[in-house]
């Protein structure tokens, strides 16, 4: 029997001595400096070390990795043979600059039950997350699942937020993370060596030492465990805050409606409903809020025994947003509101000795303008323009729009918007209002009708209200998508299933798929309808 020769020391079980550190990063975020600090730390400690960085290869904001290997004892006779590639399942420390990047390397198998993971939990959204019309952000819960499943110890801290709170720039996250790693004890290296390394590398030394200490203390004081608990605002404060913003004349009347929610609706819904009531009272008047609550009531009656009230919640959110659709009047009000300029000043971190001008990019199209006029007057004209004869006489190739760039922070620039706000009281008689309202009614009725058929189906329809968004063409397109979703997808499928049995699984499943298609691309509804036609054809055959 041949055994491993004893004169060659093959340290099969002493793997821990070689340190392997993987740094996943977003290109252009200072990962190179972070890597350099660590290399210097190891050199100061007298380790053998090799750093491999792929700077620039990530090409502007793509994913990139840095990789360090280090060996504590220097044997000058025989140097360590380092690997230039990290090996899945064989990494001791993962130090991640951003949360999604952590997720990506963990999904590739780099983490294991012997890995210490130190990661910032802030997100830099990738292009693919920015494109869908509904939520395309990757689930944070999933990322946490990965981090917990493939680590021995997971230290997650929002380094960007911590940097901001301490008045430091974005790039300070690197030193904060280094501090967090140092304090985690994964490396057994003194604080002094880290500080010396930061000084030696010489990039933003003062700031980075400050940031390092912040990261170090944050982990030492165990704060990263606390940061997960978020405190919600109290109901009374919630009410008070909104009341103060509301016009005094409207307050008393609205109070009755708020009282009604407190009495008749469960606690989980009251903030949403109250937010909606305030919003609509501000948008139009209290009569409008009351109208809203009446619609909610109809749906809530079907939802009383569900337990989590998902149907009412989704319906309440979407209906409130829909009823406060953004027309010229609404935009004008928001644009010249003095609160807006306070917010801008704060967001842009402006000091008192700086002045600023705000210029807006407004480009309403024709319908957004005439939509504000009385329905009685506009409706016949629109009907006329839609006739074939009219379109033959005046074929409009180019869309009519009214581009303008008013300086809304100036008196002159805000005048015309102020003038527009005066149309507010006539809004309920406008052409646009009638148009929005007819589809809104269809929405309410559909939610009610489908909920009676099947609760989950009702929820799907209630949820689908969130695809209606945007201005001008975008809004007309999304409204059209919604209309077709009801008429060409949910309706025929549910009718089909009603006949064949009691389950609406197919409708719900296909409805979800359709919503995903609509969310992902502008012609999603066409693809969805095609899909449904195929499904129905197949079923019919």
């Amino acid at each position, binding site marked *: 029997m041949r055994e491993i020769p004893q004169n060659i020391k093959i340290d099969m079980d002493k793997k821990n001595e070689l340190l392997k550190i993987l740094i996943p990063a977003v290109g252009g975020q200072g990962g190179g400096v972070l890597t350099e600090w660590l290399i210097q730390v190891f050199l100061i400690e007298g380790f053998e070390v090799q750093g491999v960085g792929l700077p620039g290869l990530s090409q*502007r904001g793509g994913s990139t990795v840095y990789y360090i290997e280090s060996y504590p004892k220097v044997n000058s006779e025989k140097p360590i043979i380092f*690997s230039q590639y990290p090996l899945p*399942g064989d990494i001791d420390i993962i130090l991640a600059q951003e949360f999604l990047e952590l997720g990506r390397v963990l*999904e590739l198998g*780099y983490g294991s039950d012997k890995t210490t993971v130190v990661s910032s939990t802030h997100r830099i959204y990738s292009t693919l997350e920015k494109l869908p019309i509904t939520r395309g952000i990757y689930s944070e819960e999933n990322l946490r699942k990965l981090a917990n499943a493939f680590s021995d110890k997971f230290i997650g801290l929002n380094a960007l937020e911590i940097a901001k709170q301490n008045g430091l720039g974005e790039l300070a996250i690197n030193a904060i993370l280094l501090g967090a790693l140092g304090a985690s004890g994964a490396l057994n290296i003194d604080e002094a060596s880290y500080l010396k390394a930061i000084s030696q590398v010489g990039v933003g030394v003062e700031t980075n030492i400050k940031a390092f200490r912040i990261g170090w203390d944050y982990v030492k004081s165990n704060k990263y465990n606390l940061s997960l608990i978020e405190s919600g605002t109290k109901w009374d404060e919630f009410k008070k805050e909104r009341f103060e913003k509301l016009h005094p004349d409207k307050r008393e009347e609205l109070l009755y409606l708020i009282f009604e929610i407190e009495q008749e609706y469960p606690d989980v819904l009251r903030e949403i409903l109250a937010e909606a009531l305030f919003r609509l009272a501000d948008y139009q008047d209290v009569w409008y809020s009351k109208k809203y609550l009446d619609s909610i009531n109809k749906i809530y009656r079907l939802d009383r025994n569900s337990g989590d009230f998902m149907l009412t919640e989704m319906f309440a959110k979407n209906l409130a947003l829909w009823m406060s659709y953004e027309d010229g009047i609404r935009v004008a009000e928001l644009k010249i509101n003095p609160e807006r300029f306070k917010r801008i000043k704060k967001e842009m971190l402006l000091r008192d000795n700086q002045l600023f001008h705000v210029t807006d990019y407004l480009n309403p199209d024709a319908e957004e303008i005439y939509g504000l006029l009385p329905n009685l007057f506009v409706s016949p004209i629109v009907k006329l323009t839609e006739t074939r004869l009219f379109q033959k006489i005046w074929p409009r190739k180019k869309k009519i729009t009214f*581009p303008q760039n008013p300086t809304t922070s100036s008196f002159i620039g805000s005048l015309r918007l102020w003038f527009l706000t005066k149309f507010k009281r006539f809004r309920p008689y406008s052409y646009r209002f009638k148009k929005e309202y007819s589809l809104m009614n269809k929405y309410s009725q559909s939610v009610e009708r489908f909920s009676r058929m099947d609760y989950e189906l009702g929820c799907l329809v209630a949820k689908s209200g969130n695809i209606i968004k945007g201005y001008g063409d975008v809004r007309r397109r999304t409204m059209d998508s919604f209309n077709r979703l009801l008429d060409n997808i949910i309706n025929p499928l549910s009718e089909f299933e009603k006949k064949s049995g009691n389950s609406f699984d197919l409708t719900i499943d296909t409805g979800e798929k359709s919503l995903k298609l609509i969310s992902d691309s502008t012609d999603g509804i066409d693809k969805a309808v095609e899909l449904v036609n195929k499904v129905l054809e197949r079923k019919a055959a």
Partner: protein
Amino acid sequence: MGSTYSKETLEQLEFGEGKTLYGDTPLVILKAFLQSGVSYLGGYPGSPTAGLIDAMSDAYDPVLKDKGIYFDCSGNEASAAALLSASISHPIRGSANWKIVGTNVASDALTHISASGVTGGAMIIVGEDYGCDSTLVAEKALPFALKSTMAVIDPRGDLQHIANMVEAGFELSEYSNLPVMFILSTRTAHIRNKTRCKDNIEPKISMLNPLKEIVSDLEKIPMPPYSVEHERKKFHERIPAARKYISNNNLNEIFDGEDKGLGIITHGTVYNSLNRSLYNLGEANLQGETRIPIFNLNVTHPIVPEEIINFLDGKKAVLIVEEGMPNLIEEQIRSIAQRTKLNLDIFGKDILPQAGEYTPDNITKGIGTFLLSYAISFPEKQRIQERSEFVEKHKEKAANLLKESVTKRNPVFCTGCPERPIFTAIKILEEDYGKSYYASDIGCYSMSGLPPFDLSSSITGMGIGLASAGALSRMANQRVISFMGDGTFWHSGLTTSISHAVYNNQNAILVILENFWTSMTGHHENPASGMNMRQERVSMDIEKALKGAGVKWIKKVDPYDLKDSIKVLRKAYQTDEGLKVIISRGECQLEKNRKERVVTSEKIKTGKRLVQTKLGVDPDVCTGDLSCMRYNGCPSLTLKESPSILRDDPIAHIEQSCVGCGLCGEIAHAAVLCPSFYKVEIINNPSLIDRIEAKLNGAFLHFISNDVLNN
């Protein structure tokens, strides 16, 4: 270009015998050049060798110039390769570098130089990016060197070793008259570590000590009747000489082991992966002591048959771990074994992956298979089995934990990038004109093929995007639009694409993105920069060159004026004949910002009036339809949660990193999207007039504000 290497770092280049240098691979290679007494250097930037150009460019003024070393800012890889001609008849050492695909551009020059052979050591550093970290095609350099008869050095992933091999390479080249190709893989090109220095050698011939007399040796000129003689010399003189030098100087290494019946043959960088793989299987230690003997080829061409025979002799079985296809090393070894009638089993690509980088995890399974065939004891078998399967199983476990896989992050154009707005304009025009055939080329703008733009029907490089659409310009219903950067224009675009298009009266639109830098490689000067890499002024004009080539339809646009760009593009779309060239001029924002940052902070500090621009999105006006994202792709235009608890979906948001180019606002206008965007002009150190104006405005505005609040 901002210096990549600090003064202190570059000072290490003067270190003498025994001192320790700390730095990255490019710096170590440059030091090895100086230790070899090179007279001239050149190259065309491209990852993973772009860092080498940085090092040479940064070191030119403080170090190289004083030594009289010529540094060539090569126009493309062909001119870089041509530089090596200086070594043909003269005892001059020199080196050129480029990335793997550049070898194709350089091939004409290399063929001629290889035929003549070299007198002075000539070395080409080829950045091989087989894992495609920054290259669009996967390709190996070895087959290329074989067909042109060049020696190939493929070093282990160890900086000291790399430095030694550079020095050995020059000796090998001079001894054998072969030009030497030195392979630098992506990872080995980016190592940071310490190395021991030697004294620099002063170049024999230099700008300070020029050639007294030019040698004209007719026999060195590739022209009949000498051409046939060159071919004979290659195989009868140069290759045998190289083999002799390689084996006399032990350039290849044997890592001996106890188990003489087995062996593994590998090469260069792959050795590091192999050792790690064996270590994890329990077959070697970290210092490279191994149970099974390893023969590592640091020179992969020519192979020395005697060395191979010596290693194979008396063995039962050998595994060849060779990265890439075609597997020329394996085929050569098999033929040597067959010719020598050695009776042993040879394994290679039959149990290892055919394609792809040989990372430790990619080869572990194959190595396990080899070891298992010859393992004897049960515990040994069990250990190898278990460990060789571990990585695959672990990877699978990780990949399957979640139902929804983690979203990918593709690279994006920078904040404020002047190249991006043209793609926005084309995207907006798609609504009216439908999709065109987009023939893209190599540069940052290749990213226009990725979301959100998706504007690439093809990418063919370099400088040949437009030419690649030659046939389709006449045979497709769609119009042809091609993109080309200024670097690409001067690299070869002018000759290969533009003069060809004019000559053939190609009906196409060419958008030249002139941003004055070769940005993709990390900001290198190009002829459009107004300065070369030695920081000497040059003046080369794209428009004049186009006119000279006979292009009639030329329009210039300011990329940030979206409206004008759309107008000009529309005009081009409607002109259905000949070549239409639109030059979009705007300096690379990264480079511009680097310069402006200093001026801005200086002005603010000294109390001068300064207006800064930022863009914003009103969170209560934005409905979150995110149409703006589909036309933009700016990194600072991102998402945030809506301030209203009624809106579950995120809304658009502009981060503080905004540089105020205003494109997002222009898009909202041009594509008629929404009124959410606004521009803020921040006045630092306002003048008296500013302040009076603000006071007056405030007084009037007060009236409106009160009214709005009471509405």
